[in-house]
């Protein structure tokens, strides 16, 4: 059991990172933290693909003429190059949107934004009732 775990420790890391990222995306109210979570989540998938392509004892896939050389599979690595680009674009766009949200709502906290949205949709904004409560 332990040996099996030790043999696939990179996949265990992938699962831990994946769950960490996904949890942040779902549970954090701060929009920037959500983006960080999303990046961690995507990165875990990158590591997953890279682990898939790695052969134990394999070298870089550059032909050296020796038929006994063991090569790693380059395809997953190339795919992840593309996925990294997509991930960067997603993060950049997300952060740009957060900037604009911060300008428009004065906050990057989801609950405050929801509160601001609700007050906007009312025809006549209610006066804060904190004084009355006191």
């Amino acid at each position: 059991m332990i040996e099996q775990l030790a043999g696939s420790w990179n996949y265990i890391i992938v699962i831990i990172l994946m769950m960490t990222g996904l949890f942040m995306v779902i549970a954090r109210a701060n929009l920037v933290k959500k983006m960080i979570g999303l990046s961690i989540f995507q990165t875990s998938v990158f590591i997953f693909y890279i682990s898939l392509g790695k052969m134990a004892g394999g070298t870089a896939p550059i032909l050296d003429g020796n038929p006994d050389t063991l090569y790693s599979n380059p395809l997953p690595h190339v795919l992840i190059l593309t996925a990294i680009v997509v991930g960067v674009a997603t993060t950049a766009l997300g952060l740009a949107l957060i900037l604009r949200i911060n300008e428009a709502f004065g906050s990057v906290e989801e609950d405050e934004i929801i509160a601001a949205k609700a007050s906007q949709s009312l025809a006549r904004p209610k006066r804060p009732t904190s004084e009355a409560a006191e």
Partner: protein
Amino acid sequence: MMGAAILTNLPALLVVVPLLLAPFSAVLPIAGLAWVLALVGTGISFLAALMLQSVTENGVRISYHLGNWEPPWGIEFVVDSASSLTLVVMSGLGFLATLAARRLVAIEIADKDSGKFYAAWLLVVGGLFGLVMTADAFNLFVFLEISALASVILIGMGAGTDRRALVAGYHYLVIGAVGATFYVIGVGFIYAITGTLNMGDMASRLPDAAGGAALYVGFGFMVAGMLVKAAIFPVHIWLPAAYGYAPSAVSTMLAAIATKAALYVLARIFFTIFAGTPEIVDIALSNIIVPLAVGGIFVGTIMAIYEADIKKMFAHSSVAQIGYIALGLALATPAGISAGFIHIGNHALIKGGIFMAIGGFVAALGARASLETITGIGRRMPITATAFLICGLSLAGLPLTAGFISKLYLVRAILETDSYVILALVLISSALSVVYLWKVMEVMWMQPAPARSPKLVENPAIYLPLWMVALGNIWFGIDAGWIVGAARLAATALLGGGA
């Protein structure tokens, strides 16, 4: 010589033309010119799609090798009866939405941003076409993200009139990115089992591959990711806000074509990639997708009944309509799948028209369209409102409209499978959809306009596309031969196995 070269490269052109025009549109300083570029791009795509459709009508399957690399090593585009029908619907409505966009965009988007707006518009359209044609599972992810990121930009541009568009765009970005990443995880598992990314190749290798748990996990992740993109209940939550707060032109285009591509990809996953392992597909379809589809139909319809904002109301209704399409596809019978394809086409016509008309209302009102603000609008803007009425009747499924044909074939397909519970649920939900439509129509046509309301100016610039769509709803309701025939061929092509 030149003509032949263009003909053989049609599948690539369909994607390349919009994608290449996009950067030019982004740097154009004049809004009108950028719009012309977008119109040219979508127009050429529509022509290309029509030509592809006429070629594939006899069951011909075009396999286009990008860069002349043989599949499974290179990326392959596949156009058969199924994808060409989807392409014709998407490019046709995309073209009409672009035609209508000029006026709506001029009102809602600042002139200096128009070039970038149409650039993102072209990227969405080109990305969606690629999504439908590609037979490479990873290339699909790239097209998925091209169109998703560009649509987030388009949705966020609604911030000029309503700041809530920013939040809607952000949520779509995050939820969409999680969905796309799920899909990539799934592809990773299937690649680990089969060692290929080509869908046809995957299909032929999967039955012999000792997949075990990895097969189930990969299948589950791929489907789950696509469910998010297709906005199927319960992962549809991004859709109502995204369509509701996006600029009117964007709502029109996205509602008409965006989720259709994802639905088509779902069908490809079920019936092409996993054609060789029907047991897991059957379990997933009958135990998961059918209940989710029916759930979506009810949730969407009921949410629409309680919604006062017109754009969001019809966005909720889109969730329900996507449920009908998914239900048809999930029946997995030839009749069911062709019913799904018929509704892909008809729903694009219906929602395209409805959102175009709402765009016209919003432009005239200068405010969000809600049950309150559109009171009596039937008499104040009769030409736009009549087209809206026609599309609304079609949505309800009145005979002699396209919506009726959809419902008819869906009900027939359900009857064939003897699932009377689902049949009853579909009929009940159809009746419920009349409730929100009645609410809107009653306010529009039967109530007098409020006193001292400003005179509304009609928007003749959108008449042409709007009425083409509205008359299309009637045309395809009376003479449904073309779409029914094409949908039947599509179902045959999809179930026939192979990519």
